[in-house]
């Protein structure tokens, strides 16, 4: 069955067409997007189970990032394909995707460093390409590759970047330097990649900018520093800062993000809160038996496979009830253990990248 992808997009368009008469709020674009999202989820969910549309916590917030059919071509390569992305104020948005999916391209378009081939991107309602400077006053950016000025020390780099950006919280910066255990007297060229990454991170976090665009910010950091980073993200979130976190470290995204978007070949193939994504993914049910595993009749939406001599594993797409009934009928008294768990983000993620045809199916 199709979970998102085409039906989702169809539903979205339908949702947009269905509500022309509804009065528009001041953030009309956002309002439209939210309704479209809700419609999308409704249509998606109605295919799998009759769950009501999830309550939208963003209802009272405005869009910090909004893209509309954002497209970027580099020669023959289509790097980003009609991306519609909304990130709301105060939200931590996990932007997932394998290498080359278009994550960095998105961020460069959001910063106005590259020009969209079609569509548009907005930060705080300002056009990212036409008016970058005003947007950047409220943005801090951590680049994927920590290229800085090799001849400057970390302290000089902070001073320089801070002066250009304006409005740096020096006290917080000192706290961050302490937390990330950075020797600020060393020149950038003498630092390892991880330490350069820390310099970028500290410089960005210390601006206390309203929006943080982080492009794989923890690449090169050791696990201890990774924890320090998560702490910083939580702090930023508590202060109401918005964060776009591009990453392929799933545990990191799982730990800090409110909402997740999965990008593949330049298209957003899945999006939602972790709960929503999990709900849409297959449950895994593992059953071990006292004796040999019984043979079950085929059930719709259930994929069974052997998991050892006396065990079975089921991938259940819909309700678990029919499976339990079938198990009881086939010999419920021989069941030793039964475990059921939701899919991890990793499984959802891998699920999206298994197929090679770009079509999302369960």
């Amino acid at each position, binding site marked *: 069955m199709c979970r998102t992808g085409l039906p989702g997009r169809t539903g979205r368009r339908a949702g947009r067409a269905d509500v022309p008469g509804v009065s528009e709020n001041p953030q009309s674009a956002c309002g439209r997007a939210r309704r479209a999202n809700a419609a999308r989820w409704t249509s998606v969910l109605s295919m799998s189970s009759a769950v009501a549309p999830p309550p939208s916590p963003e209802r009272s917030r405005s869009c910090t990032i909004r893209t509309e059919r954002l497209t970027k071509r580099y020669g023959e390569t289509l790097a980003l394909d009609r991306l519609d992305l909304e990130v709301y104020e105060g939200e931590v948005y996990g932007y997932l995707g394998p290498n080359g999916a278009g994550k960095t391209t998105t961020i*460069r378009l959001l*910063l*106005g*460093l*590259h*020009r969209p081939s079609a569509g548009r991107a907005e930060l705080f309602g300002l056009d990212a390409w036409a008016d*970058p*400077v*005003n947007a*950047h*006053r409220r*943005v801090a*950016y951590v*680049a994927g*590759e920590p*290229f*800085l*000025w*090799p*001849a400057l020390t970390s302290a000089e780099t902070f001073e320089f*970047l801070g002066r*250009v*950006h*304006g409005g740096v919280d020096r006290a917080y910066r000192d706290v961050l330097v302490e937390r990330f255990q950075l020797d600020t007297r060393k020149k950038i*060229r003498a630092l390892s990649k991880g330490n350069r990454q820390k310099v*970028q991170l500290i410089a960005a976090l210390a601006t206390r900018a309203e929006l943080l*665009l982080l492009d794989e910010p923890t690449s090169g950091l050791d696990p201890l520093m990774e924890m320090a980073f998560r702490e910083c993200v939580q702090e930023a979130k508590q202060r109401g800062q918005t964060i776009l976190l591009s990453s392929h470290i799933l545990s990191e995204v799982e730990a800090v993000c409110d909402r997740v978007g999965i990008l593949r070949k330049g298209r957003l193939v899945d999006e939602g809160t972790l709960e929503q994504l999990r709900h849409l993914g297959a449950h895994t049910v593992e059953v071990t038996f006292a004796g040999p595993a019984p043979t079950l009749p085929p059930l719709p939406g259930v994929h069974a496979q052997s998991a050892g001599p006396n065990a079975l594993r089921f991938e259940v797409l819909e309700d678990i009830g029919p499976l339990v009934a079938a198990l009881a009928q086939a010999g419920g008294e021989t069941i030793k253990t039964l475990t059921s768990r939701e899919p991890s983000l990793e499984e959802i993620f891998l699920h999206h990248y298994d197929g090679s045809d770009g079509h999302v199916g369960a």
Partner: protein
Amino acid sequence: MSAPRAGGILATLVGRALRDARTRTLAFAYLFALYAYIQPVGFRHAYPKLTDRLAFVHSFAGNDAVRFFYGYPYDASTVGGYSAWRVGGTLAILAAVFGVLGAVRALRTEEDTGRAEIVLAGAIARRTVFVAAIGAVGAGVALLWLGETVGFIAGSLPVGESAYLALATATVAAVFAGVGALACQLAPARRIALELGNAVVAVSLLARVVADTSSGLGWLRWLTPLGWAEELRPFAGPQPLVLVLPVLATALVLGMVSASISSAGISKSIRREIARLGTGSIATPTGYVSFVFIFFVLAVSLFACAQIGAARQQEADEQLETLLALPVGRVRWLGGRLLLALCAAAALSLVAGAFTWAGASAQGVSMSLPRLLEAGANCLPTTVLFLGLAALAYALVPRASAGIAYGLVSVAFLWQLVGALLGVPKLLLELTPFAHVGLVPTQAFRGDDAAVMLAIGLVAACAGLAAFRRRDLLGT
């Protein structure tokens, strides 16, 4: 009775000196090209992977004995950085020797063997001979630069950076040509002049070695032309502003030598001959300075190219991405860079004028300071023109911009030099901007031509700013 006649004599003398030095010059140029080619190719072959390169940096490159030979490795983990390091240590020393040897051979050997007398008896000013000799050495240095650049390009290094790296080596040859010329004036015989010049090379090398191998003495690098070549840092965070030092040093030394030549006196009979023939201004201090300033015009224009090369480097290293993600507009950034380049070029030009005046005054030759400052300012119209064109190239074809900029200046200058020597029609000759530069202080400042060049430069710069606003930032 007219200037072309003097130009003709000069051209003949330059041609003569070049032919005398052709074996040596070609051998050096070939060696430079080969050595330049081997560095990137060998490094890629020996250290194909980044891990190998990092291991190399941590072990071999940090070794003091290695630094003794090759100098300070600013960044030996990249192909370009490694090549710059190897070349900075070895070719720079060879370039220094080439400069001294070239100048002494051209200036003193002729004199010592008596051939100079034959030339001078032909009713030519001593200064003309000197200028021709220096011109020939300059052409030789240009050939070394070309050879080294071609070598790097053949080794698959980018064009602009290759030209800049070779320029770092060539500056050493230029400064030491000045040192050789000075040694010729001081020493009673050719051999002693050569020894004196080489002694300066040795002291410079010693200073560089101490600076590179002892912690805390890095500042010594600033005292030696070999150190300046290192501080230009090709492929490792280039600092093109350092070019100011070799340019000024060459200006100062050649200014002093020129003054001392005129005070050494030219026999009255020869002076009469010159006056009768009207060999033109080249035989006077003013004329000589005019001639030297042609090369300053070139140098300051090249300086503009180096500035655009540095801007491109900043973009390729993705520092620009970090900068433009801050509240900095693109027009403000590039406009600021252009303005900075212009101010630095203006300061460089005026200081070159002032230093030439100081050098001449120190030798008791009185020249008008305002006039020499004007000669300095005369470097600026072509600089603005090439800076504007380079900015436009940077906005439209960033990856090729430095190559285009250096290429434009080199071709334009060679066009004038070769065109003048071959006597091509005026119409063709005037295609190059350098043909429109008045030879201040001998000739008047050519305001109309300057205005046209400034206008073209400004229009190109504005077009470049507008085009840069419209394109994607491009990494390497």
